[in-house]
């Protein structure tokens, strides 16, 4: 399962949003979904109708009941297509139909008999069809999946059923109203002359129109299922980490760190979830879409395969935990609260001792009221005390937030943040230019002027611009992206509020653009001026 190929935006959605998304996808893929449902459905419906009409014309409604029970069989092919299309793999209708028997082999009898009455069929079908679960594994999986979304799945089933009935009734009524009188006799063959009256024609209308609703039913149910898996398995976080890993291609150790970070986060996520969500079974069950073609395996084989996979995964996790990356030791020196079980009165001297004494005196010196044997008043007094403390803390937090600009330590924090950013690894190549410090000459202004004097003005300006960006990134802590144009880089620097740097970059950018895009040869004087100002803007180097 390649999550990066998902054609939807993975994020936490409510089940109704998932249904909405399912409807949109059904509209997008309507033609293949409709054909995949309609072709086998129409063929079967024709056969069943003819047989009923021929054998038991008085009980033509039996065909309706029969087709209604068979509907889960027809849902599987559109579901198969949708599960592949979701991962940007668009199968042809012919390919899916050729696998129709394989798709329907697994648990088909159960689905057209007692499970047919399940109101959450659209939600449960992917668990059978895509994950290939049966027996107790299926039950466990269902109990996890049904924590959210099952109510909406029931509503969806109801809405789709009513839509089918309304559409069929509407078509029946439309034809009855618009049929010319001369043809009415022929029409009556299907209605009043045959037992069942209008109901027979209604059944045919139902057969004709049911495939129109089915793509929405299947896709919406499938999206509730996918939404639930996104919630349980944090696909959105996984995808974000994958994107981050791709972006940080210049970091030499970045990939390993990110992988470990994602593993850690993933483990933390599952370990901190409720037991229902974090059951090992639910985590390990990943028969997913790629393995869907193997659903012809017998139930026992599937369970054994899962168990072996689970062991492999658990072994892999243990190995990762045992690696040196999870066994790092470091010394940290900082103030921290001692355990209350230890000697709580042995607080160290200094500021903490003074604060503690202050609060102790404050509460001890407060007048004690003899409240006798009124325990309720004691409780109220304690509550009032804590309310007052809470109000005091809230007021302090509010004031700190209100006047945060006035506090010097916050300024220091901002400086620390900038320093931290500056310490982050910088890309070596940006905009196609080499922006490593190592590849810059020792004395940039001298080198620029030398290049100009060698009749290489373009290389001179290029070096100056490249060096300026490099210094801004490595020395001043700015971050530029590959998609940023020169103007956007300039905006980034201007927004930082440093007038000197932004003015300097503006001049260089103008010069660079006129050379690079305007194909003009620069004079020596502006280059000289920029070279002279270089030391003033980047004073610590060269």
């Amino acid at each position, binding site marked *: 399962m390649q999550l990066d190929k998902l054609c939807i935006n993975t994020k936490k959605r409510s089940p109704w949003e998932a249904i909405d998304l399912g409807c*949109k996808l059904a509209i*997008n893929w309507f033609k293949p979904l409709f054909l995949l449902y309609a072709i086998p459905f129409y063929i079967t419906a024709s056969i069943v109708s003819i047989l009923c009409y021929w054998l038991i014309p008085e009980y033509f409604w039996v065909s309706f009941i029969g087709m209604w029970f068979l509907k889960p069989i027809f849902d599987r092919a559109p579901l198969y297509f949708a599960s592949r299309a979701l991962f940007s793999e668009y199968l042809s209708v012919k390919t899916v139909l050729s696998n129709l028997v394989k798709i329907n082999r697994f648990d088909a009898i159960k689905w057209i008999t007692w499970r047919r009455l399940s109101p959450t069929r659209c939600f449960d079908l992917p668990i059978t069809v895509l994950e290939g679960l049966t027996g107790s594994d299926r039950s466990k999986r269902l109990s996890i999946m049904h924590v959210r979304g099952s109510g909406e799945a029931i509503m969806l089933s109801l809405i789709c059923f009513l839509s089918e009935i309304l559409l069929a009734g509407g078509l029946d009524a439309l034809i009855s109203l618009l049929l010319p009188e001369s043809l009415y006799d022929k029409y009556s063959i299907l209605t009043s002359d045959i037992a069942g009256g209008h109901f027979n024609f209604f059944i045919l209308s139902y057969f004709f129109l049911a495939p129109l609703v089915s793509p929405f039913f299947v896709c919406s149910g499938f999206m509730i299922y996918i939404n639930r898996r996104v919630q349980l398995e944090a696909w959105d976080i996984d995808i974000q980490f994958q994107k981050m890993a791709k972006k940080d291609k210049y970091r030499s150790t970045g990939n390993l760190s990110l992988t470990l970070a994602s593993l850690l986060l993933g483990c933390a996520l599952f370990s901190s979830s409720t037991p229902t969500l974090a059951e090992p079974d639910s985590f390990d069950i990943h028969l997913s879409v790629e393995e869907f073609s193997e659903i012809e395996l017998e139930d026992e084989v599937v369970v054994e395969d899962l168990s072996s996979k689970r062991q492999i995964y658990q072994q892999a996790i243990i190995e990762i935990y045992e690696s040196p990356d999870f066994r790092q030791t470091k010394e940290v020196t900082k103030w921290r609260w001692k355990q209350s079980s230890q000697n709580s009165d042995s607080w160290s001297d200094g500021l903490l001792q003074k604060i503690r004494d202050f609060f102790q005196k404050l509460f001890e010196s407060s007048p004690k009221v003899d409240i006798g044997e009124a325990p309720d008043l004691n409780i109220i007094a304690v509550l009032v005390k804590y309310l007052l403390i809470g109000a005091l803390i809230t007021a302090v937090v509010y004031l700190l937030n209100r006047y945060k600009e006035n506090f010097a330590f916050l300024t220091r924090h901002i400086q620390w943040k900038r320093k931290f950013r500056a310490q982050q690894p910088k890309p070596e190549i940006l*905009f196609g230019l080499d922006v490593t410090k190592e590849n810059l000459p020792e004395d940039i202004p001298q080198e620029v002027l030398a290049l100009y004097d060698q009749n290489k003005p373009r290389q001179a300006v290029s070096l100056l611009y490249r060096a300026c960006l490099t210094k801004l990134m490595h020395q001043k802590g700015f971050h530029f992206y590959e*998609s940023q*144009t*020169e103007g956007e880089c300039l905006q980034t620097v201007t927004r930082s509020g440093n007038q000197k740097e932004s003015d300097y970059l503006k001049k260089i950018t103008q010069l660079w653009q*006129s050379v690079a*895009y305007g*194909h003009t040869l620069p004079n020596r004087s502006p280059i000289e001026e920029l070279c002279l100002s270089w030391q003033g803007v980047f004073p610590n180097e060269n």
Partner: protein
Amino acid sequence: MELETAFNLINTIKNRLNSVLLGQETVVDEVLIALLSNGHILIEGVPGLGKTLLVSALANAFDGDFKRIQFTPDLMPSDITGHVMFDTESNKFRLRSGPVFTNLLLADEINRAPAKTQAALLEVMQERQVTIEGQSKPLSKPFMVLATQNPIDQEGTYPLPEAELDRFLMKIFIDYPSFDHELMLAKTLTTGSVTDQQQKQSNDVINKEDLLKLQQLASEITIDDQVVDYAVKLVRITRESAAIQRGAGPRASLALLRTARARALINGGSFVTPDDVKQMAFPVVRHRIQIAAEMEIDGLTNDQVLMQVFNQVEAPRV
């Protein structure tokens, strides 16, 4: 025409328009870019922001002809293009030219007319000619359609078909002015005037010949191969991204380069930079794409999706 003269002339028009439409400098710039690029423009904004005022102000600053069509549900194609009628006095068929035979055409509330009427503009906008009774008649030069539409109050409106949207060089948004500008506007229009209409400034700033020269000059602005490459990449990525269901066609690439050239000119530049291209990519591409279903459900606008997509394209560096 010299670059400096052109820049001064453009600045004069800009100042005139900005004095009429307060606080909408970006919109004014974009309208001028469309004018210099010899393209048509679709202006979208809620009622009362001065869309029609902007167009009439542009017409006032220009000595060419200006006509306005109020699109209504019962408007017919012949009401736009004209038709042939039988003159009983002369016993001859006579061509009655429609309002499209002008220099500046304001198509007000264009989405209020049905599709067949909107389609009458297809040939007008692309070929700049009108075919009536099998005879093609060219429109006068310069010719520009400025269409307006209202994003709210969609009842009884007809969305523009893709083919017609593609013929608009740019789609721009007009937003509410800032407090200061609205304050100034309120003071100006309510002092010594009994209507909300601004006083018409009689003197023309530019004539047809000058405008044609400016358009010619804009088309000759230098553009580096890498910048062309960047523009095409920006358009092409809209067809490759999964976030966009229907990307922009090659006409968008042409439009992007034309508008980037015009933007460089109105900024006084003699060459196009990647910034010009990226800035113009939004108004040029936003109406030519259809974002994917999930993006729509997530409430993302075309511009937000485009921002994400464009950020995947590396800016050119020599």
